[in-house]
């Protein structure tokens, strides 16, 4: 099998999305850590000249950038343990919610880069989007993908793990169990799912990492799409 390499930056949730997809499908890959804040490598600039960001998947020497595009590529190249259903309408829905996650990034991450009154407002806006996600995206399903983890679950994986760490640092709780019972239940299911559970970044290391930045503004910039 041709060489698969993933250029990433620990502990980016965009990168983890790709790691989960590869692991769920049992694809062997080489991971390469990039310093995206202070010292981007020649390799990264060569493989993603347009955005100069991670993740980048390199397969048989050919690079693919943008996590959503990478996930579709992985799905098509390694069809086992599918992340998308077979029927076109189901696929369109999975892609819709994946895109919702991307488009609402600014609103959902807003509480990370604001303070005081602004942060209260940003938190509310984030929760409005989560309300839509809970009621219309997830509904009564076990996972966004139905009975199995799908593309949209990977998109929102950060809610199941990164959010706790950011909440601890900022003191802001975006998802309370009583207000978002379905999302809360999904969070427990997602992070307990065997392949996912084995593939989560160490929590205390994350705390140290994110605390190291003043007000989380720097990692936010690193996380935000260019």
């Amino acid at each position: 099998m041709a060489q698969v390499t993933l250029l990433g930056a620990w502990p980016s949730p965009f990168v983890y999305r790709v790691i989960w997809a590869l692991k769920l499908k049992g694809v062997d890959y080489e991971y390469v850590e990039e310093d995206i804040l202070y010292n981007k490598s020649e390799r990264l600039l060569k493989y993603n000249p347009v955005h100069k960001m991670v993740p980048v998947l390199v397969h048989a020497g050919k690079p693919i950038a943008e996590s959503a595009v990478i996930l579709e590529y992985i799905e098509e190249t390694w069809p086992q343990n599918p992340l998308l259903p077979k029927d076109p309408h189901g696929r369109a829905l999975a892609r819709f919610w994946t895109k919702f996650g991307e488009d609402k990034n600014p609103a959902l991450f807003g509480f990370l880069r604001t303070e005081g009154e602004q942060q209260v407002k940003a938190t509310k806006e984030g929760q409005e989007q989560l309300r839509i996600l809970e009621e219309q995206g997830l509904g009564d399903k076990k996972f966004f993908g139905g009975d199995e983890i799908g593309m949209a679950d990977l998109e929102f994986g950060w809610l199941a793990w990164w959010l706790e760490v950011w909440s601890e640092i900022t003191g802001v709780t975006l998802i309370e169990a009583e207000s978002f019972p379905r999302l809360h239940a999904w969070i427990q299911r997602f992070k307990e799912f065997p392949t996912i559970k084995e593939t989560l970044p160490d929590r205390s290391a994350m705390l140290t990492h994110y605390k190291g930045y003043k007000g989380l503004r720097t990692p936010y910039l690193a996380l935000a799409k260019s």
Partner: protein
Amino acid sequence: MADVVILLDAYASVFGMRVRVALAEKGIKYEYREEDLRNKSQLLLKMNPVHKKIPVLIHNGKPVCESLIIVHYIDEVWKDKAPLLPSDPYQRAQARFWADFIDKKLYDAQKKIWTAKGEEQETAKKEFIEALKVLEGELGGKPYFMGERFGFLDIALITFYSWFHTYETLGNFSIEAECPKLISWAKRCMQKESVSKSLPDPKKVYEYILEMKKKLGVE
């Protein structure tokens, strides 16, 4: 059973146009419904409750939203005619990557060309041309973005061509002077009936934008 296909759209929408072109490429019969975006229909609100936006494709009663997701859907359902995406996964990834680039870089820049003035407008023009030049580079010497055949990425970009006259007039610049190869590509696409019949008259788009600016109080 015959397919019932309805498209909720607005004639000047670059996103709606993408769906029109895709449907035309596949020769799919559908009912076009023009939405008044200041007075959205009950059907639109019911079929796209999350964003309340057009385009929405309603296929046998089930809605599909987001223009590029709709184009994927059309390609998957009516897969036996005129494939829109290439068959090779890497080529597909490239098409998706550049379509994402168009929706992020190009869309934001073009909006400010017709809503902003002075410094802000100049910056927007610069960003817009830069993005077009990157796309022109991607096109290279090929007739269409993915090679010999018109497809997904051409569809994603060509719809903006109907707005070029508006950008040029309001921004006081010539896109052809900056990106001649891209204009050749656009004219090539416009020779296809699926494209020329799906895009509005650029002069009508300009009049529509002038009216929009008045209503928004942006003159």
